[in-house]
């Protein structure tokens, strides 16, 4: 069982690759039913955020066990300009672009844990987890 998938994100086609790999890994980790689609969708959103705001970056998907809980961990990292106001960016419906502003806040809704850290000029790292029920 591959415990880790690293997907470089440079083009929109890589978004598709990332979510497909995420779905496979989630399946290997024992997720089933709609959770697989939920995880793939969340990965799609954070990967797209990289393309939209930093041009390129990386999505790392790993087994995300913690304590007695088993799950999946997704890290989306870029070295882009960073997000000036994280709180604002995480508001549902807020967008710096012409989008709906649903991407990141939406991903947060889909996953059980969602952390974002961003430093202006240095980049953004999003870490999210989902536990198996």
């Amino acid at each position, binding site marked *: 069982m591959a415990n880790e998938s690293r997907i470089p994100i440079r083009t*929109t*086609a890589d*978004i*598709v690759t990332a*979510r*497909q790999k995420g*779905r496979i890994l989630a399946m290997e980790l024992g997720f089933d*039913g*709609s959770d*697989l*689609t*939920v995880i*793939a*969708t969340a990965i*799609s*959103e954070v990967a*797209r955020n990289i393309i939209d705001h930093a041009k390129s970056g990386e999505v790392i998907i790993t087994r995300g066990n913690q304590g007695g809980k088993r799950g999946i961990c997704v890290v989306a990292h870029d070295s882009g300009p960073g997000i000036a106001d994280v709180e604002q960016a995480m508001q*549902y419906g807020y967008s710096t672009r012409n*989008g*709906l502003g*649903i*991407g990141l806040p*939406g*991903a947060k*809704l*889909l996953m059980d844990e969602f952390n974002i850290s961003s430093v202006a000029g240095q980049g953004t790292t999003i870490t999210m987890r989902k536990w198996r029920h």
Partner: protein
Amino acid sequence: MRVPILKQGDYLIASVQSVLSDDDLQLLRDDLADRVGRFRSRGVIIDVTVLDVIDSFATRTLRAIAHMLKLRGAHTVIVGIQPDVAFAMVQLGLTLAGVGTALDLEEGLEYLGGRAHRLHEHRSFGSREEDRLGHPLRTGRHSHEHHSSRPRDEDENDHPGHASQRSLEYGQ
């Protein structure tokens, strides 16, 4: 991969054949805009049965396509959204508001057919749309089968409130 578009009478049918990249989606939008104008189509069915993820970008694009085609005189119905995809979409807060939905191609055609029937009854396209969009969403009721739409539209004239109730698929 470019999405093939079929012409069937007054309708266009776009069947998504494989996973769509963002570029494919935008190409689909341009192709549909072009053909709706060329063929003077009244309805468009986009079949997304094969999509295993519909994220916020795809939803936004599908909605934009539907709204744009409406301005060009065609109604759009999205068919074939799979159970898990639908569930993930609503958890993400995406509801495709203002866009018609149906189970599959067959239902999609019926949906457009029933709709044309009703429009024919009322003749006035514009006022009908205003009526639909002007009312807040009330229900999730579905459009009706072809044969049953006629008596109910007459009924609507007696009870104007019902019209907005049933307009869910277009409204919001």
